C-alpha cells in the first residue's frame, strides 16, 4: 500500500476531460484493477428539462481540497494511484463533468476508494453548478461543507 501522492493527478480543466489519459495515468504493472467514475450531465433535474450546465470553482481552494481527498484516499485504502479531473464552464447534456480513476492491486480497494473520492468531492470541494432550463436558470441545491470545530465560539446564551 502506497501512501505517496506523488503519482496522483489532480486537475481542473476548461475543456473536455481526456478520460483515457487519466486511466493511462493510474495504470501501472503493480495493479490488478482500475475503477473509474464518470459523472455526466443529465438531461433533466426534478422533472425540468435541462439545456446545459455552467460550473464555476474557487479554483485554488478546489485544487487544494481535491489533493486532500487524494491524500485521504491513500491513507484509508490500499490503492496505487488516483486521478481526479473536474471540468469548469459550460457543459452540454451527456458531457463528463467529473472523472475519477483509482488503481489498486486488488479490486475491492479500488471500488471503495473511488466511491469515497466522489462522495467526498461532492460535499467538500468548492465548485458550483448553475442549471439552465428553457424558462430560466438556478444554482443547484448543494451540500454545506463541514467546518472544523469552532474552538473559540462564545458561550451559548442558555
Amino acid at each position, binding site marked *: 500500500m502506497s501512501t505517496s501522492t506523488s503519482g496522483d493527478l489532480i486537475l481542473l480543466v476548461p475543456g473536455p476531460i481526456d478520460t483515457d489519459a487519466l486511466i493511462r495515468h493510474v495504470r501501472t504493472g503493480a495493479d490488478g484493477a482500475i475503477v473509474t467514475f464518470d*459523472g455526466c450531465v443529465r438531461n433533466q433535474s426534478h422533472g425540468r428539462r435541462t439545456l446545459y450546465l455552467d*460550473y*464555476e*470553482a*474557487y479554483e*485554488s*481552494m*478546489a485544487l*487544494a481540497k481535491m489533493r486532500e481527498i487524494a491524500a485521504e484516499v491513500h491513507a484509508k485504502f490500499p490503492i496505487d494511484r488516483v486521478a481526479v479531473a*473536474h471540468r469548469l464552464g459550460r457543459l452540454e447534456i451527456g458531457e463528463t*463533468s*467529473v472523472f475519477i480513476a483509482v488503481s489498486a492491486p486488488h479490486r475491492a480497494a479500488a471500488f471503495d476508494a473511488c466511491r469515497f473520492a*466522489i462522495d467526498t*468531492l*461532492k*460535499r*467538500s*470541494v*468548492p*465548485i*458550483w*453548478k*448553475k442549471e439552465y432550463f428553457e424558462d430560466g436558470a438556478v*444554482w*443547484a*441545491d*448543494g*451540500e*454545506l*461543507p*463541514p*467546518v*472544523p*470545530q*469552532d*474552538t*473559540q*465560539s*462564545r458561550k451559548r446564551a442558555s
Partner: protein
Amino acid sequence: MSNVTSAIQVKVLFFGRLKEVAGGAEESVDLPPGSRIEELFATFVARLPELARYRSSLVASRNQEFAPWSTPLHPGDEIAFLPPVSGG
C-alpha cells in the same frame, strides 16, 4: 473604523449565488483590529441587507481552509463566502 492606520485589510471573495447578490466576485475590505469573519460578513450585510438570509446557508474559508465564523482576521487574509457546494 476609528483607527484607520492599524486597520486590517483582507481580500474577500464571493462565489455562486452569493456573487450575484453581492454584485461582484472580489473586494478589499478594511476592518478594525480584532475583527473576526463574523464582523466581516456583517459589514456586507450592513450594505446589502438581503445577504443576511444567506448567513445560515453558507460557510466561510480563510486562506483556502474552511473556517468558523469566530476566526480572527489577519492582514492579507483571503476570506471567501461559499454557498452549498454542488460539484460533481
